[in-house]
């Protein structure tokens, strides 16, 4: 049996992830980098790839990067302890933000986009 090699890592940073990228949608334009208020994002050494999320622990969860992305390639995710809870009045069922469920996406835009 081939021996699997194991690597020593620092413990995972918390929050683990502040934002997620869709590699298909992202063209590596790096526009989001210059919208981040705390300079969390760094250009990827590989051109055309999504930026590196360098400092997820310094994310303010303001969503400026996601809002600025022309390709909708960024999904901000609240850390697990920040995923607010709601109940559907009619059924009493409980739902959480950033967790997939059976509900339909509510696409009604805010007052001004």
């Amino acid at each position, binding site marked *: 049996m081939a021996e699997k090699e194991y690597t020593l890592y620092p413990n995972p*940073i*918390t929050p*683990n992830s*502040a934002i*997620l*990228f*869709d590699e*298909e949608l992202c063209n590596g334009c790096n526009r989001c980098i*210059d*919208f*981040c*208020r*705390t*300079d969390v994002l*760094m*250009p*990827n*050494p590989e051109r055309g*790839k*999504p*930026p*590196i*999320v*360098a*400092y*997820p*622990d*310094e*994310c*303010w*969860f*303001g*969503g*400026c990067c996601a*809002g600025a992305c022309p390709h909708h390639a960024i999904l*901000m995710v*609240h*850390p697990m*302890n*920040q995923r*607010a*809870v*709601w*109940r*559907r*009045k*009619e059924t009493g069922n409980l*739902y959480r*933000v*950033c967790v*997939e469920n059976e*509900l*339909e*996406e*509510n*696409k*009604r835009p*805010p*007052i*001004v986009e």
Partner: protein
Amino acid sequence: MYTNKTDIQNYPGIKWPYPVDYEKINRISCDVLILGGGLAGCAAAIAAARRGAKVAVVDKGPLVRSGSGGTGIDHWHDACLNPKSKISPEQLMEFYFQNPYWGGKYTMGHMRYIQAMESYKALLELEKIGLPIRDFDDEFEGSAFRDDTTGLMYAYDYENCTVIRLKGGALLKPTLSAEVERLGVQAYEYIMASHLLTEDGKTGPGSRVIGAIAFSGRTGECYVFNAKSTIICSGMPQGEWIFSTEFNGASSKFWDPNNTGEGQAMMAEAGAELTLMESNYTICANGGMRWPMYGTGDSNNTWYGCPIVDANGKRIPYTQNGKVMDWSEIYKNTWPGTGDGGSVTSGSLGELPGDLPEKIMSGEYKLPFYADLPSMPPDERRVLWGLMIGNEGKTNYPVYKLYGKYGFDPDKDMLQVPVMAPKSNFNKRAKPYWNGEVYEPWRECQKCSNCAVYDWTMKTTLDGLYVAGLTAGNNFASGAITTGAYAARNAWKAAKQTELIPVNEDQVQKYREQIYAPTKRDYGIGWKEFKAGCARVMQGNCGEYKSDEVLQNGLDWFKSIREGEMQQLYARNPHELMRTNECYTQIMVSEMTLTASMARKCSSPTMNFKRLDYPGTDEGENEKYITITVKDGKYTTGEIPVKYYLQAPYAQSFKENYDKYCALED
């Protein structure tokens, strides 16, 4: 598919992406230098540039979104001069003086009056540069909060009409930054200014400010600014008591995490007097206890008027002076008159029953509670979840759009209120935000505190140095924009009569050595551990109750940190360099907070300041501002009277002073 494949964990040890040069010095000369490019800084830049000044603005973030109001604003305060307002600027002053929550007798009255006089005018100016402020598409035609003649929409108090709901408030910062760019202002982004430069390098009271030194968080390059007038709009220190990135990243505080107090530290270092440094409180949940801003069920502020129900759907009524309010009364919380005045400025508006904690304990209402959005009238629901949530603070993407993505529908869903201890958190103390458990040692600076002492031109006690926005003790968006423009008009007026005084190279060299010291080390104490360590000193030694011995204990502790851990701070790249320089300012601001607290030898109910060792309160001769600055290398405290801005050499009325100093003609 959205993944975290490009998180740093998967790129161990990659090369720093920007060219780094710690030796390079960029030199910039300008008429007006603005440190901090948030709402106040951008407004200042626009006002000065429109009048012909050569302007430079420096910010730790990008102007398009930086600052405490950078992500959005849902309502515009103190628009006393709008056509529907029933409150005059003079009346509003009375309101501020009566309300401890907004500063009470320690209100910087000149700043509030400037705001009241210019708020509405400034809003119309914003509209001219493209900000949607009105209900332009008649979505709310006929609603009680809308004036159908002007399309303006009011918030909270539909009688007095001093607070205006902004239809496109989330676009405020992009609108401002576009105008800044259009006017040719030089913007220096991702750059931290950390020390003021003074004539001949002499600091202390009486010195003259002639610029600032800064460095980039990306390239590490140094920037030396030489200016005729300098305006500090860098917010206020927040984080002296709280540092916790573990649970919610940089969201562990109410305020913008870039508010780390370098403005206050550099002003004092240069010799300017600061005041209200001892004023702090627990506004709402902090540290790891917070929930996303405005992103949980609430009854206050942005959420005002939303019906709250208990676990069984039982409605918890709003009351005023013990009387249950029906729907039509909630939005007529008028002041002066029957209302408590909360609606004049948002804040605490009406009340759920004052004895709610007892009613939870007795079982009359069952936890958890919910914000029952579906039971609201459609227009009130849409304006709450759509305009207020959607434009205010971090609610556009992180709450409105993200919650919607996962199916949240205000027509059908009830958002849960954080489950909290009844006694401590469902009473006034946790207001205006039900944001999670409140813990007294996790404190923040009060909304209107930690500011410079300044005159009616918004000049500090040093020539060449002005303040605006939070740095002038103003916590509102309308206040930031009005004081920014006002300070800039005066700063430019003074600059026109001044020659550029060259910087002192010895001073530049001295500050460069301080700034770059952590780059000489790549092990030791990291910035995160340092910030958390300093916060622990403040939690213990400057918490809810103060005494001379405990405050001195804190100062001695910081002395030990200065000699110990501070010498071991390391910065392995320009980003860490910026954060370690924030450590320097944090320790200085914390020391000033302890020192100013020691100088106030009485308790102050107005500023929630409690002394164990002095029985008196701040009445009579104790009613004064404590000031602090650095003189001969030491913190030096003093005092000035409250309402100093209405005493000689100033006139006795707000109006006379305003007319004399507003510099509108220049």
